[in-house]
């Protein structure tokens, strides 16, 4: 294409971008600005919200053991879900990357079902399966593990299971994308040079999967931190997470400033945990690089 003058390029760009910019400016950027701004407002149960600039809600949240407990639970559950997805999803990603094309299409469709089905329906499905009359209890009784139906729903591990279900596929897809790029000849070469299967796996396959695995962890962690429908339906009132608190404050108690404040804290906490883990990963990389350099010198 011919490179037009700068001004003409800018005007064509603007012609393309103006509509999205306006729509996203009004419908998205404005609400986000309002959200952050209103978290500094004051709220009175009788008089409602009034405009102000105070940090009282942040102080309330960060000094109240109940709220901090909910935040900690949300982080803890999300970390657990991320680790389960990373470990449990890895063989699936490996299989997907190595399987034949026809098989792969089928696997991909099954994998996409949890991603595209409404989380409400997914949560309902688990309620039916895990209920006291559900098939899981029946199977456990038939296997002789338990004598009587046990309460499986409304517990923390039910929530972990539900969140793993809705986000595992992201981890598998991201990891498989990395593994597909791996030149399998490297593995064959390592094997022919006498490396055992597990050695070739740890030294070649696992490092090759790391970019995708990291991406997957990032997606799964953020999704778990912010999930709403699944926790609200299968975790029960005892296992509250941040998203439910936000809904409760905003819709049941109509305390919009506090809901806005908790929204900001939730986003900040998610970003914070991801930033810290990124920092650790970088430090480790640095150490590994240093070690391999000193290894070169020794050789």
């Amino acid at each position: 294409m011919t490179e037009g003058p700068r001004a003409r390029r800018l005007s064509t760009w603007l012609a393309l971008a103006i509509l999205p910019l306006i729509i996203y400016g009004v419908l998205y950027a404005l609400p986000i600005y309002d959200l952050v701004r209103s978290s500094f407002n004051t709220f009175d149960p009788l008089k409602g919200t009034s405009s102000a600039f105070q940090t009282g809600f942040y102080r309330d949240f960060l000094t109240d053991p109940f709220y901090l407990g909910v935040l900690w639970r949300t982080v803890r559950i999300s970390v657990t879900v991320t680790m389960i997805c990373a470990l449990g999803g890895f063989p699936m990603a490996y299989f997907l990357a190595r399987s034949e094309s026809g098989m792969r299409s089928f696997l991909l469709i099954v994998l996409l079902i949890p991603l595209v089905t409404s989380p409400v329906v997914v949560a309902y499905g688990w309620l039916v399966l895990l209920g006291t009359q559900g098939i899981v209890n029946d199977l456990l009784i038939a296997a002789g593990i338990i004598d009587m139906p046990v309460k499986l729903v409304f517990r923390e591990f039910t929530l972990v299971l539900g969140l793993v279900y809705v986000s595992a596929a992201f981890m598998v897809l991201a990891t498989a994308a990395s593994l597909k790029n791996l030149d399998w000849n490297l593995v064959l070469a390592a094997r022919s040079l006498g490396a055992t299967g597990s050695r070739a796996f740890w030294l070649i396959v696992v490092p090759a999967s790391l970019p995708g695995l990291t991406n997957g962890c990032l997606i799964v962690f953020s999704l778990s931190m912010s999930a709403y429908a699944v926790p609200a339906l299968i975790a029960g009132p005892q296992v509250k997470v941040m998203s439910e608190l936000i809904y409760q404050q905003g819709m049941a108690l109509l305390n919009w400033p506090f809901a806005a404040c908790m929204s900001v804290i939730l986003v900040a906490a998610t970003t914070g945990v991801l930033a810290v883990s990124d920092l650790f990963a970088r430090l480790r990389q640095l150490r590994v690089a240093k070690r391999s350099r000193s290894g070169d010198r020794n050789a």
Partner: protein
Amino acid sequence: MHSRTAESLGGRFSKVLLWVYVVAMQVFFLAPVVAITVGSLTTTQYVVFPPKGLTLQWYSRMLDRPEIIYSFLLSLGIALGAATASVLLGLLVSLAIVRYSLRLNTILWLLVASPMMLPTVVLGFGFLQTYTHLGLGTSILGLLAGHLVIVTPYAFVLIATGLRSVDRSLEDAARSLGASPMRTLGLVTLPIMFWSMLAGWALAFLVSFGDAAVSVFLNTPQVVTLPVRIFDALKYSPLNPQLTAVSSVLVLVTLVVLVASASFIRLERIMDRMR
């Protein structure tokens, strides 16, 4: 490469183990969806899986509930509208970002891609606050606007990968043969990347159709989308078989869109580009 699958890392035992694991994973991924759809055929007055007896009565009774039909049509309409608009927006943004290297693109990208990274509850609550001030708060228009914002990033990401994969030399050839930029776009570029627009539309449709977290804030007592109706009902009567029938209608629409779009586009292409 495929014939070499046999030369994988472990021995026969670990291969059997891998297969057992893969089958278990498939069962895990299908379990809740199967429980809902098959469970809705039960003749009992409460939901049970596997079902006792087979009947379609819960589906036929659904037709006597106009509010459920209304919610279904509302969800369908909003998903169709939001998905179609999101493909148009996603195409505009992709063309601007992929074809022009301007600093301003960072702003555009941040604006359009970041909703995907924010919690839907936070978005839903933010929309409620601002749309109320804008006078959009309690109408179908507000619901549509909220859905448009949350689904466009998905359409955009897929369409941008589609556009990046178009071979520029084909466009150059069309241009050098005298086609105008618009003609080149319509006759060369768009047909080549059509799969990504279709995939983007389908994903946007499905995200909107299944959403509860944003809708729950923007619904009014009269305007209730289907997932929110199920969500609310689940809190009071989770074991009503009627509810599984409604839910499995949702599942069926999802599966039809998923399988139909998967047969049009090679799904693997999405995996290849997910880097």
